């Protein structure tokens, strides 16, 4: 289906490669789905030449946290539209969250998601599965059967596993199978009816608060369960200063704990809710500037391993409900790079690490994504224009929904081409399928 079939490949000429090995100025030839040649001033032969002389060639991004909404909520997003948004955002792989309808808690649903991803052909869609059947927090899913179907990440995302004993058993059972459980940290008895961060802002606005403690208690519990069981846990979308501290201490103890943070939790605060616009409602909620700064610090010092979008599409009418009944969530895939770049004081290579090879390793995709740009490696690449200035236009996004909190926000840097297994799925900022 690519040009490769006709013999000619693609030559990325004049760019700078940034990958796990470092930074170098080399040309990259892509052919047959893989990287065929890397070197200075490669001969074009019968390749199509793409001038990338002002750009950065990097391994494609990997999103640990994408809600594709299919099956069940295709008014908000489909696997195809979400994959397109991912490809445009520089992603070559996404982990699809299991809170679909029906839930991704059995092989048939997981297979459906994977097959639809393949059919769309815009990025590798790796379904996660829930930890408990129907995400109801009661019975464990068939981990081994789902693992055999290729699932590596298990999570009840949308809610946390409340029952301590059940979470302990899940860790013992899944850990043995080499699987990773990912936790949405929220003690639900502390967040009943919660709409936004509990603090000064919610006190003025008369809205029920979501205390930082509700996240931190579960972060703490899970760290202690990891200590007990030895099984790994990945902590989703950390949002509070104290959560970052807890993870930092757990890592210092050598525990197999990983964590992610979202672009919105490092760029926006709860003050944004002052206009009561549900575009700024998200779970966990936007926090205070102090939390934002500590989450940034956690990403910079390596306490937090990855940037994950928590891309959560919702149709326009759902975000026109009153704030307390509107669903939480915001788009993220197409703005992640620009937003992260604006809010993290990091060299480009460290930023790409947080978006590419670090999350690839957590997702169990390190053999396919986030690879060094070397001969023989799969050509899953994004070509970034690091200096292009652009403004977010919700209606111009590829996602079926437009609930971005960054309307009219100017950003610097954007993926320009994306290659999936050698195929140019995005060319000059436009999806090719």
């Amino acid at each position, binding site marked *: 289906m690519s040009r490769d079939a006709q013999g000619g490949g693609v030559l990325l000429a004049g760019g700078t490669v940034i990958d796990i090995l470092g930074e170098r100025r080399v040309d990259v030839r892509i052919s047959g789905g893989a990287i065929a040649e890397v070197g200075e001033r490669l001969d074009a032969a019968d390749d199509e030449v793409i001038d990338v002389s002002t750009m950065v060639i990097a391994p494609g991004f990997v999103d640990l946290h994408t809600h594709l909404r299919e099956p069940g909520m295709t008014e908000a997003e489909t696997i195809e539209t979400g994959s397109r948004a991912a490809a445009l955002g520089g992603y070559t792989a996404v982990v699809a969250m299991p809170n679909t309808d029906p839930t991704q808690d059995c092989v048939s649903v997981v297979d459906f998601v994977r097959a639809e991803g393949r059919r769309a052909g815009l990025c590798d869609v790796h379904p996660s599965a829930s930890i408990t059947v129907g995400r109801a927090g009661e019975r464990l899913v068939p981990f081994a059967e789902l693992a055999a179907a290729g699932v590596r990440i298990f999570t009840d995302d949308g809610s946390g596993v409340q029952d301590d004993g059940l979470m302990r058993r899940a860790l013992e059972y899944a850990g043995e199978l080499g699987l990773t459980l990912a936790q949405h940290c929220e003690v639900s008895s502390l967040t009943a009816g919660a709409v936004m961060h*509990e*603090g*000064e802002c*919610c*006190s*003025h*606005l*008369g*809205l029920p*608060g979501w*205390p930082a403690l509700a996240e931190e208690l579960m972060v703490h519990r899970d760290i202690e369960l990891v200590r007990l069981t030895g099984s790994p846990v990945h902590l989703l979308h950390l949002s509070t200063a104290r959560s970052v501290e807890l993870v930092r201490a757990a890592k210092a103890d050598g525990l197999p704990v990983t964590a992610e943070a979202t672009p919105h939790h490092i760029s926006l605060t709860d003050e944004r809710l002052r*206009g*009561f*616009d549900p575009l700024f409602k998200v779970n966990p909620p936007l926090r205070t500037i102090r939390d934002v700064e500590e989450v940034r610090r956690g990403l910079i010092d390596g306490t937090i391993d990855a940037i994950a979008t928590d891309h959560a599409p919702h149709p326009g*009418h759902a975000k*026109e*409900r*009153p*704030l*307390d*009944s509107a669903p939480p969530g915001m788009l993220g895939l197409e703005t992640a790079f620009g937003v992260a770049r604006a809010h993290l004081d990091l060299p480009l290579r460290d930023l790409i690490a947080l978006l590419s090879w670090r999350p690839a390793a957590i997702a169990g995709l390190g053999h396919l994504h986030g690879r060094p740009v070397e001969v023989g490696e799969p050509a899953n690449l994004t070509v970034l224009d690091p200096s292009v200035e652009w403004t977010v236009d919700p209606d111009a996004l590829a996602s079926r929904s437009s609930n971005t909190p960054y309307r009219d926000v100017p950003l610097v840097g954007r993926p320009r081409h994306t290659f999936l297994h050698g195929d140019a799925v995005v060319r000059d900022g436009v999806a090719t399928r």
Partner: protein
Amino acid sequence: MSARHLRGIDDVGADGLLRLLDLTDHMAEVGRRANPKVPALRGRTVCNLFFEDSTRTRMSFDTAAKRLSADTMTLAVGSSSVNKGESLRDTVETLEAMGVDAFVIRHRSSGVPWRISEWCTASVINAGDGWHQHPTQALLDLYTIRAERAARGAEGFENLRVGIVGDIRHSRVARSLTEALVLLGASVLHIGPRTLMPPTPLAPSTDDLDAALADLDVVYLLRMQLERIDSAVVPTGEEYSRRFALTPERAKRLGENVLVMHPGPMNRGVEITVDPAHLPGSVITQQVTNGIAARMAVLFDLLGGVDLDVGSPAIGSGGAAS
């Protein structure tokens, strides 16, 4: 220059509040006429949009609009979960297409008047949103305090000490009134258990009503929702009453010029266990009466009403006779 909306106290500020209080005086005068009706808003349409039941507030607004000769329409949508899926925007845009100059909005969810004001060109008046704001209640309370204190020989808000007792956390009345009183220079004390206070205090607070009583000029009792007791925010109604109700014993300790207020409807036996009719300082009935005048002032101000006396058949006959 008047504001376009009255969604919260910060839409008007201190100067705006004082202007509205003076305007309320005029409206109260209109209300005392034999024919308490003026043509000030003739041809204007006020839409009462009540997503939450509230007979009293709705009737107060409706009466206020009619006394100013505005046309009114009322949509009582109720607050059941049936309406949760409905797009608020669709509802409002449909109604505005019928020609509405002002929406009076009551909704169980905080913030709804702000959202609606972004979707329409009409003025938006908040008749209570969730736990957030109830600015016309604050205005009628300020007016009542000013008028009743003047009748007792006291002036101004600067040295006034107001204690608001009860469920501050879930109270839009407390939020608006506190903000308004502080803007005008009064001092406010919130009195109740920690479980009924907002996570971050909006004013100095105490859980010792008995100690606080001696230093108050106004005791403002909030309605204690029985559901708070059911959801274990306070242990029992009996315990709440012992600690925070205005009991006959506490009432005896109030100075004779101390005002007792309540936004209604009262839960007798819960936040008040004395008959307010027997309290010299009770101005609860006056609050209700003043509510109409205060809402007339708001409608008149926002909709740019014309001269209060023009065309009024009541001129010269009723006047300020009462």
